[in-house]
């Protein structure tokens, strides 16, 4: 009798779970609509509080940071003078051709309201009603690649970050002819895989997206090389990448609504 009752409970739970899954979109859409406003307030409060703690705890490193920044500043001043001529020429060409981020793509501004605690997905306050659809690329205003739209609800969407374990994209190292594949590792970590053994990949190399796979537009910033794993036995070398996108800094992002996938 006891076993029979236990089986009935199992069957009832299975039916409830099946029913909930059938109406998953409607349930999640309703919950996001109800909670969206509160989530946005909590998101902004969390960002401001973490900024405050970060400034308090990093006070001890200020002197070292100042010295490092002074060195970087000197190097950048040298680069700036070399680039100024190029910039002038570039501006003239851009004016002539009329190109730019907002001119190349249709951008839809969205705000981040939350993040999945176990996966690298964020929630934004734009959905199907705003013209968002699955697999649309998501970027910041500074041409940093964030990820792509994973799930779409009526007023909200889930963005799969580049660091999610299911995410991968073709990328290359800026100013070097080195291409590979970026694979998400979870926990905001990226791995740059399938790098040719004979190429020199160095720390602080800048990684940008390429459009070989057709998933993301080319030339968007992905991150910087943190460390390189090179082994003579392996066919390829790998590099650990620090993503340029930081959820603690950015609140507003853009969905590219007219990139053909």
């Amino acid at each position, binding site marked *: 009798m006891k076993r029979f009752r236990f089986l009935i409970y199992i069957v009832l739970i299975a039916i409830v779970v099946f029913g*909930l899954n059938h109406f998953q979109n409607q349930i999640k859409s309703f919950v996001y609509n109800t909670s969206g406003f509160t989530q946005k307030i909590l998101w902004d409060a969390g960002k401001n509080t973490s900024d405050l703690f970060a400034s308090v705890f990093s006070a001890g490193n200020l002197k070292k940071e100042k010295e490092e920044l002074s060195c970087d500043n000197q190097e950048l001043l040298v680069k700036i003078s070399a680039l100024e001529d190029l910039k002038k020429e570039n501006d003239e060409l851009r004016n002539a051709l009329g190109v730019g981020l907002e001119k190349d793509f249709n951008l839809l501004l969205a705000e981040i309201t939350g*993040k999945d605690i176990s996966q690298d997905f964020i929630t934004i306050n734009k959905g199907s009603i705003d013209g968002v659809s699955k697999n649309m690329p998501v970027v910041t205003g500074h041409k940093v690649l964030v990820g792509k739209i994973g799930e779409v609800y009526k007023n909200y969407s889930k963005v799969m970050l580049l660091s999610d374990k299911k995410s991968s994209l073709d990328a290359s190292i800026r100013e070097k002819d080195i291409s590979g594949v970026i694979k998400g590792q979870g926990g905001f970590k990226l791995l740059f895989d399938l790098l040719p053994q004979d190429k020199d990949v160095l720390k602080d190399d800048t990684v940008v997206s390429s459009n070989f796979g057709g998933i993301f537009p080319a030339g968007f910033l992905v991150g910087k090389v943190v460390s390189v794993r090179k082994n003579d036995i392996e066919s390829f070398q790998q590099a650990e990448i620090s993503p340029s996108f930081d959820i603690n800094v950015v609140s507003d992002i853009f969905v590219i609504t007219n990139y053909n996938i």
Partner: protein
Amino acid sequence: MSFVKNIAIAVTFYCFALIQSSFLIHFNIYGFVPNLILISVLVINLVEFPEKRSGLFFAAFGGFLVDVFSNRPIGLNLSVYLVLAFIIKYLLKNYVRVSFGKDV
């Protein structure tokens, strides 16, 4: 009173779901964020009398909330939390002699 207490705990779970997905995210340690709902489910089932059923309902509700705010299908965390609650109750009922349970 018990009904009011149950509603209060359910609302608290909902608040935890909002806090952990929007506020605590900014305080992650190497990408990990404390799962307040899971901690609460474990505490409730450990503290409650093994014969009581309310801990199981809270486990199912907590799992449901975690599923809704994640990208996973509804039912995954719900099942996991329910199984965890069952295991805790079974162990407490059959293998733990010290009585520290209370009516939650």
